[in-house]
């Protein structure tokens, strides 16, 4: 574990100059919106994207033939490089999810938007009271569900792409990024469609639980499943790349 932490720090240092200002900028914007009670999970998506700035450049660099050679120099087990890559990816995405959910919670409590001029106040109030997406016929897909769903899908997709990149030894490219986003968007649209059209009403409560307790259990179960899949992809990558030359 010590080795993995050292490697995560190594990767973090590689990306910190470019990622930190970007992430801090996003976080400050989100905090201001939260303080005024108008934080919307759409901004959470920007947090997810900016968290990727911490691990993606270093992981890309690791697949570059020149930079990869550092793996042959450092006194570290080969498997630790793979494990560190997956650990930092999952940790960054989970941290973004938790921050987004906390900010959503705080935003619900704040009513600072009431200091705004009347027109702006009305507009902000609409954002503040909006609990989710109204999908018609009294159905609402809650934002909290969407945030969890997006994070879970991102963990699965990004770790899968990490596995492919490690096995095939190529850098992440724009096709991978498009694959991630199209996957997330398709999954959300399909979920909403299922709820809107009551295609499988008997599973609706399972798909998007309406109670708080149900939502928490659902969220934790989905995240745990995604992390388990991520670990599985990590093990596959570790095994397949064990005999690779650096």
């Amino acid at each position, binding site marked *: 574990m010590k080795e993995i932490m*050292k490697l995560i*720090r*190594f990767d973090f*240092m*590689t990306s*910190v*100059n*470019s990622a930190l200002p970007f992430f801090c900028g996003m976080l400050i914007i989100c905090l201001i919106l939260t303080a005024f009670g108008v934080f919307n999970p759409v901004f959470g998506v920007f947090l997810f994207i900016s968290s990727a700035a911490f691990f993606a450049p*270093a992981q890309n*660099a690791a697949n570059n033939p*020149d*930079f*990869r*050679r*550092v*793996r*042959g*120099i*450092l*006194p*570290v*087990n080969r498997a630790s490089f793979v494990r560190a890559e997956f650990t930092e990816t999952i940790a960054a995405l989970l941290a973004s999810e938790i921050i987004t959910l906390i900010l959503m919670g705080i935003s619900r409590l704040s009513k600072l938007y009431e200091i705004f001029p009347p027109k702006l106040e009305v507009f902000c109030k609409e954002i503040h009271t909006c609990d989710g997406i109204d999908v018609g016929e009294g159905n609402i897909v809650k934002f909290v569900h969407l945030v969890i769903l997006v994070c879970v899908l991102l963990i699965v997709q990004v770790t899968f792409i990490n596995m492919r990149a490690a096995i095939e030894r190529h850098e992440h490219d724009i096709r991978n990024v498009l694959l991630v986003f199209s996957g997330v968007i398709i999954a959300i649209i399909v979920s909403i469609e299922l709820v809107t059209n009551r295609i499988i009403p008997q599973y609706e409560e399972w798909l998007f639980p309406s109670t708080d307790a149900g939502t928490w259990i659902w969220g934790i179960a989905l995240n745990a499943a995604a992390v388990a899949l991520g670990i599985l992809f990590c093990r596959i990558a570790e095994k397949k790349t064990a*005999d690779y*030359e*650096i």
Partner: protein
Amino acid sequence: MENILEIKGLNKTYEGFALRDVSFSLPRGYIMGFVGENGSGKTTTIRSILDMAKFDSGKISVFGLDSVKDTIAIKEKLGVVFDSLYIADNLNVKQIEQQFKPFYKDWNSDEYAARIKKFGLPTDKTVGDFSKGMKMKLMVAVALSHNAEFMILDEPTSGLDPVARDELLDILAEYIEDEKRSVLFSTHITSDVERIADYVTILHNGKVWFTGTKDDLTENYVVVKGAEEDIPSGIKEKLIGFHSYRNGFDAMMKAEDTDMLSDELETEKASIDEILVYIAKEDRRERDNEADKV
């Protein structure tokens, strides 16, 4: 004399290339120049030492430890410099220290700071703004700051201007002054080897053509020139890289065989550069002969 590096019967096959029975050793306290033309297997040998390439058979020992089983213990005491930068170029020297320091038990921050100062590396610029010579010095500073007892450099002087090359060679010479540390550096700039190496290993087509002291190499081979008709019978087979011109020929041969030469032929000590050229010529001649037979 204790060997810091020992390679025995190293074999490694790639498609279209093979290292065949590579064996050599480097005693503690000396510098070895590892030379050969491009594609001769120098980098593959170095990658095998570092456990970056998996070899088919053979054994590599560094500090008496097995290069595969004990690779982590070896790398704790090993400094490595490659021909191109493996460090993120968006960082400054301080950040690079923070990156590498946690991996080495014996990291010495004072030593690193002293090296950076001595090498004249700017602390306020990112590595991307460094010249090639500065990048090389930075990799050397990293390699020297964890008390490495053995340094491996792969083509460290290629692409460097003469001043930067000279500085780097001085650093290596100073590094082994305590006679406890060793350097293995691969290069095809043979003047660098002539300047600082104590030992030389020549790799040719994946095989060791020569390994031993530099003096043994340069004293054992001579360049022969003269008219072709003055070559005594039975000597032509002993000539390496024989090449005839309109006015004569030139070739290389072992110094021990020069007694058999006639006085009309001129001989002079071969430089490492000439030795490499004649090895390549001999190779080409053999290939041409094979082609003629076919």
